[in-house]
C-alpha cells in the first residue's frame, strides 16, 4: 500500500479504490518525474555545457559541428585556474566584498524602509520620492560623473569604491518597505504602550521577523555585487583587489578568446553562489510569501 507523498490534494480528494489508487499514484509520480527531468535538462543544459567545455582544449570549444563531449577529458584548464593565485585571490576578495556589501545593504536599506513604512516625520513624502527615484536612473547616465565623484573622494582602487556607491538600493528598500507595511500593528502597539522606543521596536521586533525577507533581498545584493563588471574595471587597477568578473573578462579578446579557461573559470566561479542558493533556498520562497508583496 503506497501512500501518496505529494501535496496534490486534488488527487487525494478523488479517493479511488486502493488498487486503482496505486496505479494512478504511480503514474502521476512517473509523469512528475519526467516533468522534473525535462525541465531540469532544458534549464541546466547550458550550464552543463559550460562545465564540460572547461575540459576541452582552447580551439575545441569553438569547433563546428557542435559536440557536447570533448574528444579527451583534459582537466588542464581547471587545474590551471585552481592553481592560479590571482584567481583564488579574486574569488576571495569578491566573496568577502559581496558579504560585506550584502550585510551593509541590508542594514542601510532596512532602516530606511522601516522609517518610511512606520514612522511619521516631517517631509516624509519628499524623502520617499528622493529614495525611490534612483530606481529609474540608468547606470550609463551617471557612469562618468559618479566616477569623478569617487575619484575626488579618493576612493579609487579600494574595496570601498565597490561597496559604498551601490549599497543604498532603491529597489531593495522598496521591497523591504512593502514587508514592513504589512507587519501586524498589534505587537507594535503593545510595545509602545510598554514604553519601547521606535528604535527598540525596530531592532527587537521587526528585525527578528525579517529573517526570510532579508534572505531574498540579501541574495539579490550578493548577485549584483558578484556579477559587477564595468564598475570594477573602471575603478580597480591593483591586481590585489581584482574582482572575479574582471579576472574572467581577461580571457576574452577580439583576437582569439581563451574559451577553455573562460568556461572552466566561470564554472568554478559559479560554485560558491550555487552553494549559497542551495543553503538558503527554502527561505527564498518563504521570504516572498510573507513580504506581503501579494
Amino acid at each position: 500500500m503506497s501512500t501518496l507523498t505529494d501535496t496534490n490534494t486534488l488527487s487525494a480528494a478523488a479517493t479511488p479504490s486502493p488498487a486503482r489508487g496505486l496505479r494512478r499514484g504511480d503514474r502521476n509520480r512517473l509523469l512528475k518525474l519526467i516533468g522534473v527531468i525535462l525541465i531540469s535538462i532544458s534549464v541546466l543544459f547550458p550550464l552543463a555545457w559550460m562545465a564540460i567545455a572547461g575540459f576541452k582544449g582552447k580551439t575545441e570549444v569553438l569547433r563546428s559541428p557542435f559536440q557536447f563531449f570533448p574528444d579527451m577529458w583534459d582537466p588542464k584548464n581547471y587545474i590551471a585556474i585552481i592553481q592560479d593565485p590571482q584567481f583564488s585571490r579574486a574569488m576571495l576578495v569578491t566573496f568577502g566584498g559581496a558579504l560585506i556589501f550584502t550585510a551593509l545593504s541590508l542594514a542601510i536599506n532596512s532602516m530606511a524602509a522601516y522609517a518610511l513604512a512606520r514612522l511619521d516625520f516631517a517631509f516624509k513624502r519628499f524623502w520617499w520620492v528622493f529614495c525611490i527615484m534612483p530606481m529609474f536612473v540608468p547606470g550609463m547616465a551617471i557612469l562618468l560623473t559618479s566616477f569623478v565623484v569617487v575619484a575626488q573622494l579618493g576612493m579609487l582602487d579600494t574595496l570601498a569604491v565597490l561597496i559604498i556607491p551601490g549599497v543604498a538600493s532603491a529597489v531593495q528598500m522598496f521591497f523591504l518597505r512593502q514587508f514592513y507595511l504589512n507587519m501586524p500593528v498589534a505587537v507594535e502597539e503593545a510595545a509602545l504602550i510598554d514604553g519601547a522606543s521606535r528604535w527598540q521596536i525596530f531592532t527587537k521586533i521587526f528585525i527578528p521577523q525579517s529573517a526570510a525577507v532579508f534572505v531574498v533581498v540579501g541574495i539579490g545584493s550578493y548577485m549584483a555585487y558578484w556579477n559587477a563588471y564595468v564598475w570594477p574595471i573602471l575603478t580597480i587597477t591593483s591586481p590585489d583587489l581584482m574582482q572575479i568578473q574582471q579576472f574572467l573578462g581577461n580571457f576574452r579578446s577580439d583576437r582569439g578568446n581563451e574559451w577553455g579557461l573562460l568556461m572552466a573559470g566561470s564554472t568554478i566561479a559559479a560554485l560558491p553562489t550555487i552553494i549559497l542558493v542551495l543553503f538558503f533556498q527554502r527561505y527564498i520562497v518563504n521570504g516572498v510569501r510573507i513580504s506581503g508583496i501579494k
Partner: protein
Amino acid sequence: MHKRRNKAVAFAAAVVSTALVLTGCSAGGGTPTDGGTTNVTFWQQKFEDYQGVWFKKYVDEFNKSQDKVHVDYQVIPADTWAQKLQAAQAAGKQPDIATTNYGNIAAGVVNGQFAALDDYMPAESFSDIKENVASFVTIDGKHYAYPMLVEPSTVLYYNTDLVTAAGLDPNSPPTTWDELIDWSTKLTSGDVKGMTIASTAPDLGWSSWGLQYNACGHLPINDDWSKADATDPCFDKLLDFYKALYQGNLIPQQPKVGYADGSPYGNGEVAMMAGGSWVIGQLKNDFPDVLAKTQVAPFPSIDGDQTKPTATLGGWTLTLDSKSKNPQAAADFIQYLLAGDPAIMADFFKAAGYSKYTVRTSVDEALAADPDASADPFMQTISEKVVAYGKQEPGYPWDIALAMGTAIESAMKGTDTVEGSLATADAAINDVITKQGLAGTAPKK
C-alpha cells in the same frame, strides 16, 4: 530616551565608520613622486597575449635599468577601453601614455588630447620612421604619436589542401573578385564554407575600407569632408560583391567570432578567409597544423589590378597625454621602447610571429639579419604585395565608417537594395558632417 537616541546614533556611527575603514582598505596606491623617482602610468589596450608578455618584459627592464622613471603598466580590456579612458579623463586621472590607433590620432589632436612628441624626443627618432607611416602620425609638421607597427587589415588566406582537393591551383590564387567568388563556390562543400569575411556592420565599418578604395579609389566622402559620396556607382559593385558572398551561402551565415579572430579558418570550417595580417600570429600559436597548409596572397582586386589598394594599414602607436604632469619622463619611456635600440622592436616582431610590420628603417635592418624573419613564408609576400599598396586609415569619425558598414550589411542580408542601402548611408554621412561640423576639417595630405 537618551538610551534610545544613543543607540540609534551609535548604530549610524557604526555604519559610517565601517565605511571609513573600508576606504582605508586600499591596495596601496603609489604617489606621483617617490623621493626622486617619477611615476608615469601606461595603459595598454589588450591585444594578443604575447603582446602583454612583451610589454611587461620591457617595462620591467626599463624600470630596473634606471631609477629616475618608474612606469606603472596596466592592460585594459578592449570592450571597456573607451569608457575607462573617458572616465579617467573626466576625473583627471588619465594615463600619461596610452596605446592609440592611427585612425584616432587626427580627432585626438583636434581635441587637444595629445602632446607633440617633438618637444621631448630627439629628431633622429622621427627621421627613422618609414616614409609612408610618417604621415600617419604627423599633423601640421608635428608628431603626435610614435608608431609601433602596421598590420594590413585585409589579406587572403587559403588552405592549400582544400584548394587542391577542389581541383584548383594553390599557386595561382584568385586575383579578381569574380575569381574569388568562383573559388568560394568550388570550395564550399558539406559543412565547410569556401570563404569567410566580415558580415556585421561594426566589423564591416573598418575592414571594408581597403575594398572601398579598391572599388572607387576613394571613401564615401569627398576630399575636404564637406559632402558624402556614398552613391557613387562604383560602390554598387562593392556591395554586390559582399552580397554575392553572403547570399550565395559561400560564407558562414552566422559568424561566431568577429572579423579579427581567425579561429574558424584554423578549425577548418572555412577554406579561405579575409583577415588582417595578425591572424598569422594566431595561427602560429593555436593552429600550427593549419598554418603548415596555409598560403597568403593579396586580396583580389575588383579588376585584377594588383597595384590598387586592397587593405588599409591599421596599427598602433603610443601617445603622450597633453595634460601629463611628467611629459619628459613619459617620453623617455616611449623613446626607450619604440624609438631606441632596434633590437627591442625586432623582438616584438619576432614574438608576433612576423604577423605585424615594422615602421622604422633601423628595425627593418635588424630584422633583415634575423634568419627566422627571412625564412618566414608570409612576411615577404605581405610586405611586398600588401603593405606596399596599403592606404592610411581615415581619420573621420567612426559614425561615417559605421554608416557605410551598415549599408554593406543591409545589402548583404537583404533588408534593402544596394541602391537603397547606399542612399541611406549617404544621408547618414551628410548628417554626421553637419552635426559634427566636419566640412573643411580633413587633414591635409
